[in-house]
């Protein structure tokens, strides 16, 4: 008989704040918040900042509160978080048979057939902490949904559990199910827990005991699976590496409102540069693209406008020059003067793998030279850094660029910004 499956969910504690602390030991006991792009609102908090600051609070509204409680704010430093995430994930990969990286700070692992699960959980935790300085919690159980729940318990009862909770044992599992609100179950949102409340489902245990068929009829097959997984029947497997994306998107808020067309064109050319890099990295070409622009949507004093264009390209392409021209020309058709624009987005559509589409005998195709030029472009930028070679319409330091006034150094990814260690 094959062994019953065992999953672990490994989750970094307050990941962004923990990354900021790795190279700032002086902040080990100082509460930290991390802000969204353009320093808009709070997207991450260290444990000691949580009692004072809510997720999503706008930075400009809470400056005084931060000062009062001695909370330090950082702009998001994705170069640092991305590098630390890669380190954490490769350390986990070296310790377990199979990993699914679920997000920048979470991974599922397959621990089926391993003896000494608690000990392995503790080893993962101590290795990652020692080698990266990032604390993680480990939840171990017979299904992914239960592993997520075990992890939640490890976080909630950090002191008692040492950050590792194994609920493969049915008694422990039932204790956790009884003592966890249904709103904390993976995939159960606020609206659904309100629904559940009405049905008398309050704890995770209540959901585990609800008839799966009723749930399927009333909600969806996803909810049914959640309940089955809580009851101990695995329905979800470790996901395979992602197949190539069917759409590629690059969208960002401008660092300030833009009124004129030329800087918006620069921004769209910049986003297209990035989108086309992603396109070529996965070996795809695209036949359509969409460009959209909009004003801010929340300020009651500003006139609102949003519009988009779809462009059919003459042939499936990955040539940034053609894509940029198409996107920038498309802007002429939707730009209206007199608005304060806040955001642009480019989306590459109808992707297919190079060589997998049927050539139209009479239609033009991307010239072979263009493909070679793109390959050289990517090589140069890989070797010398993103943006070394770029379309002339892409500025180096645009004044509409992202606002990141409180960003920490790129401690691990820029030679000129390495951590300084003193021999004095």
């Amino acid at each position: 008989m094959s062994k019953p499956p065992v999953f672990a969910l490994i989750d970094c504690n307050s990941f962004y704040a923990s990354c900021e602390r790795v190279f700032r030991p002086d902040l080990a006991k100082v509460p930290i918040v991390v802000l969204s792009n353009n320093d808009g609102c709070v997207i991450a908090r260290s444990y000691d900042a949580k009692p004072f600051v809510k997720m999503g609070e706008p930075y400009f509204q809470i400056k005084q509160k931060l000062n009062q409680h001695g909370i330090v704010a950082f702009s998001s430093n994705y170069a640092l978080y991305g590098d630390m995430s890669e380190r954490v994930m490769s350390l986990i990969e070296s310790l377990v048979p199979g990993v699914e990286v679920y997000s920048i700070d979470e991974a599922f692992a397959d621990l089926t057939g391993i003896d000494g699960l608690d000990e392995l959980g503790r080893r993962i935790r101590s290795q990652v902490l020692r080698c990266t300085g990032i604390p993680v919690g480990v939840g171990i159980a017979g299904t992914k949904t239960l592993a997520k729940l075990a992890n939640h318990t490890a976080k909630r009862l950090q002191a008692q559990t040492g950050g590792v909770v194994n609920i493969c044992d049915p008694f422990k599992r039932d204790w956790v199910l009884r003592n966890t609100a249904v709103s904390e179950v993976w995939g159960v949102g606020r609206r659904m827990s309100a629904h559940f409340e009405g049905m008398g489902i309050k704890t995770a245990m209540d959901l585990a005991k609800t008839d799966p068929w009723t749930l399927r009829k009333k909600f969806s097959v996803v909810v049914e699976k959640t309940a089955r997984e809580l009851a101990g029947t695995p329905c979800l497997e470790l996901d395979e590496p992602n197949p190539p994306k069917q759409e590629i998107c690059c969208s960002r808020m401008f660092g300030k409102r833009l009124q004129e067309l030329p800087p918006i064109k620069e921004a769209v050319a910049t986003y297209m540069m990035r989108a086309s890099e992603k396109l070529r990295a996965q070996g795809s070409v695209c036949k359509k693209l969409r460009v959209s622009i909009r004003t801010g949507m929340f300020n009651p004093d500003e006139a609102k406008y949003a519009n988009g264009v779809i462009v059919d390209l003459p042939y499936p392409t990955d040539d940034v020059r053609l894509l940029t021209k198409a996107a920038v020309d498309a802007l002429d058709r939707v730009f209206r003067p007199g608005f304060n624009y806040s955001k642009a987005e480019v989306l590459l559509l109808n992707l297919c793998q190079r060589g997998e589409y049927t050539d139209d005998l009479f239609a033009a195709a991307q010239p072979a030279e263009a493909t070679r030029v793109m390959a050289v472009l990517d090589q140069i930028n890989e070797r010398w850094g993103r943006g070394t070679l770029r379309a002339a319409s892409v500025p180096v330091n645009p004044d509409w660029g992202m606002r990141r006034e409180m960003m920490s150094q790129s401690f691990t990814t820029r030679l000129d910004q390495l951590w300084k260690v003193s021999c004095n």
Partner: protein
Amino acid sequence: MSYSIIGPVAEGGLKVPLCLFHVPAGFPSPAADHIEAHISLDEVLNIRAPHVYLVSITGESMQGAGIFEGDLAIVDRSIEPAHGHIVVALLNNDPVCKRLCIRGKDVILLSENPKYPPRYVLEGDELSIWGVITGSVRSHV
């Protein structure tokens, strides 16, 4: 090219991890069949390992160990620090590079420059070892 205006667009798109593939291009070389693996300083110094970090050195106290101002030091966080290692220590939260000396109950951070006296770690001090320095790189221009 054909353009069709579609009106307001909702937020969309998925996040794609940052990564670039190596795309082969260029001209075939007669040496291509004879190339062995390239020598890689990344491998020699093991700086791609998830537990290895580069830091930049300031100050002169470790000159005797061949570590000078402006050098890059390679720090391994997976090694258990022991007596005799050159380490990045956090002494009261300040990152310093010293030789770790453990004598009975005493922990001493030694410099390798006669101008700098040994620093005994005292009761009120907070000390932790951030990582062990396994090598350093200096530029001679």
